[in-house]
């Protein structure tokens, strides 16, 4: 691992999808990720928060090249990922793994858990064949499951247990970096806390760095060191977690935080109401992506794109209206 304190460095990342196909259909680009810069230190957990359509999932997948970015650069531990061949990239994936929101969709229904965990061990020749079973059992123990689960099938397990398996499989290759894409969203609250505990152990005990993608700030607060707030493919604000939650500067972050339910009766915070509507996914934005709903909008916001700039120590904001303090 590099010694300069950067594990992952992403700059100017763009991932566009072409929408529409066939004769006479107008083909348009969806700018899912539209110029994102991001750095991650070893052992650091950075959360990406945003609403649906913000591009947070595409960002997570682009970073490990599960979808191919359109432009930009991704440097992982000094290696330029976008210049790697497919086979070199496959080898890199030992070091970077992903856990998805829906574990059921990512576990083969025909394979026993033992086989699911053994597959990456064999593929990447992590351990000798005689050690595969014992290693699978060890992986299960790390996510709090008993050894008899190696003989179970995914459909025999609860959602929380399946998410544990998905995490165990990601751990099998000994990664130092994990993309966790809404890993708790499909789970009941009573189970969420268990899985969050496992992820926190990975961070604190095993020192695994994470890009933690989530729409839920009250979860993010419990695991992330830093937060990026995304809106329509762009980063609106970036700050250390506690600082962002205590003092959001971007009007969108402020609105987002004010919409989080208090979870206590009679404790409703004043809420910032957003008027207007999201721009369409294919719209070419000439100004700030949030301009159509922003309560502080000015004419400048519609004509020039604000860049992400430091407005407070540690806190960067992409907004024309926020002044540095």
């Amino acid at each position: 691992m590099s010694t300069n304190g950067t594990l992952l460095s992403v700059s100017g990342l763009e991932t566009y999808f072409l929408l529409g196909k066939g004769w006479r259909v107008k083909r348009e680009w969806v700018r899912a990720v539209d110029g994102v810069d991001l750095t991650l230190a070893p052992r650091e957990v950075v959360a990406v928060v945003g609403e649906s359509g913000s591009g947070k999932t595409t960002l997570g997948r682009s970073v490990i090249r599960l979808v191919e970015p359109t432009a930009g650069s991704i440097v992982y531990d000094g290696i330029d990922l976008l210049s790697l061949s497919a086979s070199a990239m496959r080898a890199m994936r030992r070091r970077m793994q992903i856990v998805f929101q829906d574990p059921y969709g990512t576990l083969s229904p025909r394979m026993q858990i033992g086989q699911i965990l053994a597959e990456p061990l064999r593929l990447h020749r992590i351990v000798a064949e005689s050690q595969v079973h014992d290693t699978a059992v060890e992986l299960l123990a790390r996510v709090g499951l008993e050894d008899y689960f190696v003989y179970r099938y995914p459909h025999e397990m609860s959602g929380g247990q399946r998410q544990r398996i998905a995490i165990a499989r990601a751990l099998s290759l000994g990664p130092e970096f994990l993309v966790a894409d809404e890993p708790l969203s499909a789970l009941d609250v009573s189970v969420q806390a268990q899985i969050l505990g496992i992820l926190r152990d990975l961070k604190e005990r095993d020192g695994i760095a994470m890009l933690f993608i989530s729409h839920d700030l009250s979860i993010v607060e419990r695991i992330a060191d830093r937060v990026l707030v995304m809106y329509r493919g762009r980063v609106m604000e970036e700050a250390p977690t506690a600082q962002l939650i205590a003092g959001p500067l971007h009007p969108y972050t402020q609105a987002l935080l004010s919409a989080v339910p208090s979870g206590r009766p009679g404790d409703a915070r004043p809420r910032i109401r957003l008027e207007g509507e999201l721009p369409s996914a294919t719209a070419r934005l000439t100004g700030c992506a949030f301009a159509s709903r922003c309560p502080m909008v000015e004419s400048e916001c519609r004509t020039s794109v604000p860049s992400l700039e430091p407005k407070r120590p540690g806190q960067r904001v992409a907004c024309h209206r926020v002044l540095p303090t």
Partner: protein
Amino acid sequence: MLLEVRNLSSSFFLDEGELKAVDDVSFDVGVSERVALVGESGCGKTIVALSLIQLIAPPGRVKDGEVRFDGQDLLRLDDEGLRLVRGKGIGMVFQDPAAALNPVHTIGDQIAEVLILHRRLSKQEAWREAVRILGEMGIPEPEKRAKAYPFELSGGMQQRALIAVAVGPQPRLLIADEPTTALDLTVQAEILDLLKYLRDQYHMALLMISHDIGMVADVADRVMVMYAGRLVEVARTRDLFEDPRHPYTKALLGAVPRLGEGATQPLEGIPGRVPDLLDLPSGCRFHPRCPLADDECVRDLPRMREIPYARTAECHKLELQ
């Protein structure tokens, strides 16, 4: 009381056996009262709602019980009587508005249809009223949106349109099943505000069903907690949050992350998993996960008991807490 439910039981009769989705559930909803029914996935909360208006599909059916709404027993009504109650008496809003709205009719037509049926308006009056209701539900440019098809609207706008269809006939009770679950945070808060407004403006009672006990805190007057097919605790919202009595309610509240408490309050999950409704544990259904469980809990199913200040809970160990 507007709605009185007594000993309601609904089951699904599957090849594997009888799945008791709702087991001996009793509760009331008062005129213009907002009540939340909360529980984790698979606890039977949606089946309670569907049972009330006889919408369970085979192999499921209501096995037993009484549902009195405005003096009528809904479980004994014929199809025509039910048709009148659904819509004019009880409106319903579902989690996925895209699936509940008809994709081949405009939003305005769908609202106008129920107005013609339940409020006997003429076609023209119904259309004008539909546009007015859309505006009242917070849809910008309602004249234009009334002519739109559901797929042309965002998720939040679709949910507003579905609420417009449900409240058009001015029902006395609105059942909202996870009305905000599929929506973004900022939109979710707006829909909750809309539901509160309907009570204040039309004295419409609300039965809101949700998996998210944290979210209902600001909406409901009373909260009912459901676990594995049974109601385990019912109390006024503030009482329930400040002083939960059932160990499950306590655990559930302890598992809700609240913004701003990440550094000070560790999140406590509930050990184990929700029981399989086809293979329920003996005695109290929560006993395998309960820190207070003893032999009595393993042996006997506890009964709902009254506790002071108009609340009830179903637990053998209430005195210990």
